[in-house]
């Protein structure tokens, strides 16, 4: 089963626990500026939106990489950067339409979300379940259920 990060911005409070957990596991210290997941604050709308790599099937980053440093995990579908191959050319950062693969000055390589090998730290750290890790084929299920619930109140078509 392939799993994906299911993000519900409506539940996000902007606390950045996900960024802290990500930077700790990936960089060894608390450092939001190095986090693979970022929370954006749309202040005037009162909205906070966590955002990270969605692991595209035909990934722009992977296709753009001139040294084949990005591979797909055959089981999870996750795109992984191999540091021993990456030359830090940054072409992938240009190719990615979402900006979710980034260059790290300290290593000279690019970094991106890799689902922590199947047990994402951001999911465990989120206090409001705004980030879940679930079956990629069921990702829309919750929303579907919400909309289905609303149809319960609709009046029958033939009622006067």
């Amino acid at each position, binding site marked *: 089963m392939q799993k994906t990060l299911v993000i519900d911005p409506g539940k996000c409070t902007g606390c950045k*626990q996900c960024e802290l*957990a990500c930077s700790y596991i990936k960089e060894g210290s*608390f*450092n939001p500026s190095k986090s693979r997941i970022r929370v954006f604050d749309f202040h*005037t709308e*009162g909205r906070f939106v966590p955002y990270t790599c969605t692991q595209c099937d035909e990934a722009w980053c992977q296709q753009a990489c001139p040294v084949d440093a990005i591979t797909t995990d055959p089981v999870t579908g996750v795109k992984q950067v191999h540091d021993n191959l990456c030359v830090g050319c940054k072409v992938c950062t240009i190719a990615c339409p979402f900006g979710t693969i980034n260059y790290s000055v300290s290593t000279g390589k690019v970094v991106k979300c890799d689902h922590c090998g199947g047990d994402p730290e951001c999911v465990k*750290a989120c206090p409001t379940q705004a980030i879940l890790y679930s079956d990629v084929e069921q990702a829309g299920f919750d929303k579907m259920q919400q909309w289905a619930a609303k149809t319960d109140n609709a009046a029958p078509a033939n009622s006067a």
Partner: protein
Amino acid sequence: MAWTRKILRVNLTEGTCVSEPLNMDWALKYLGQRGLGTKYLMEEIDPKVDPLSPDNKMIFATGPLTGTCASTAGRYSVITKGALTGAIACSNSGGYFGAELKFAGWDMIIFEGKSEKPVYLCIIDDKAELLSAEGLWGKSVWDTDAAIKAAHQEPMMHIAAIGVAGEKGNMYACIVNDLHRAAGRSGVGTVMGSKNLKAVAVRGTGGVSVEDFPAFMKSTEAGKRVLQENAVTGESLPAYGTQVLMNVINESGALPTRNFRDVQFESANDISAEAMAEPRRSDGKPNLLTNQACFSCTIACGRISQIDKDHFTVVNKPEYWGAEGGLEYEAAWALGAATGIKDLEALTYANYLCNEHGYDPISFGSTLAAAMDMYDEGILTKKDTGGVELKFGSAEMLAKMAELTGIMEGFGKELALGSKRLCEKYGRPELSMTVKGQEFPAYDPRGIQGMGLTYATSNRGACHLRSYTVSSEIFGIPEKTDPLSTDGKAGLVKAFQDATAAVDSAGLCVFTTFAWTLEDIAPQVDAACEGNWTADTLMEAGERIWNMERNFNLAAGFSGKDDELPKRLMKDAAKTGPAKGLTSGLDKMLPEYYEVRGWNTKGVPTEETLSRLGV
């Protein structure tokens, strides 16, 4: 490890920014933030200094846990001699600014001297420089925030700034960070303005480490679980914010109303959390849009509100139609119950203005309430107020006065004096509901007796955040005491004061203590920091800090005589509610408090106490 071990010393007179090592001997005694910042201030200034003179210093201090994943670990404090009070001032703020300062690599910034021209401090990691703020002077906090981010093309910057209130000497000006989080009390923004310092802008891309990561991850996770499972921090605060208190405190007969004439507000429900969440009759939308967390906080009590576009306060003013920081309990009380005003949208608007222009809603609302009291008695007239009727309950008047105070014009300039100076000026000092020059917050000492002792002995003047005995007296946390009785309150206040000083100094939010005791906090501090941190050593550090602050005030010229409450609370009994017929029992509690503190009968710490604590 949790400390960056670096201090940034900024001399505004000389225009220099110099890095120096943190004094680790002091850090191990005073922890950080409030405690450590106060220790530095104590060592570096004469407590008798004029708060607004270049000789006063101002310290932005983070705690050792600030910037870590411990819940609520994003806080910083501004420590200085307070403009409003002349006492030690330590104003604590959340948002993201404190953590960002830590990520830039700094435990603390010490500002000294005074700049000849307006400047702002720009910190990008280890690079710090003073830049001209001449183009920013006169701008609001919000416009300053936007202008600095644009100038540096750094949307991820976090900024703490003063507005016009701080520039022009409003005595209770705040320093506002992240648009609506504030180091709010005692006039720390006034001090910043007196130094011609408009803002501090920070971008940090470094990491914060702790001494023992595995132990820290384990203890912080356990802490978060406690917060999540607690009814207050896990349910009430995220859903209702601190505003959950409005109806509860009103029912307890401890909601100060119309400048403390009454202890219950007949319209409390109209300005409560419940009212904020309910769809408005006017446009069908609720005032409350969502909740927001400060950095690293798993409680998320912050309010984000939206005012009805057709409300009289914002008609034709689209700049106020977006989502903004909404009412917290203290602000809703000061702008509402204290003034007898029940228009929730008008209170929200006044609260926006406090953030936009940088002045403390508690002191503003309380000062306005005192002015209304004087107007009601005929001491103030329309001639004094520029033609405005200062009537209890008038939302139009509140909006007008909040606008004038924000830009320091008309009667707003008088209100910017603060309640004590205003009431003295018009010959009615007894109508000022203050201790050591600072306005009361939202708990009536007649209905919650422990809060009377809290206010009277608070080192920064009347304040609820120095010992929140409401927890015990109303909510039974950690154990229930009778709010109407003075029995045992001396010990209770001391315990809350010492524990709170430790929580503040660690870099955590005091709201965690609805669920956490020092037993929950100690393992987190101990895993993060060098030294041996247990509940006992934290409590002792808290007591050390409290006595040091007391010493600052004694050296500044305060004495036991200043540990007093206004006559109204000592002579006029509560008219309604559970406390009906009661006045404050401060006279009974104070001598007992001095005794449990190890102070002499004049309120001076004994040699024995000071040497026990190593002050």
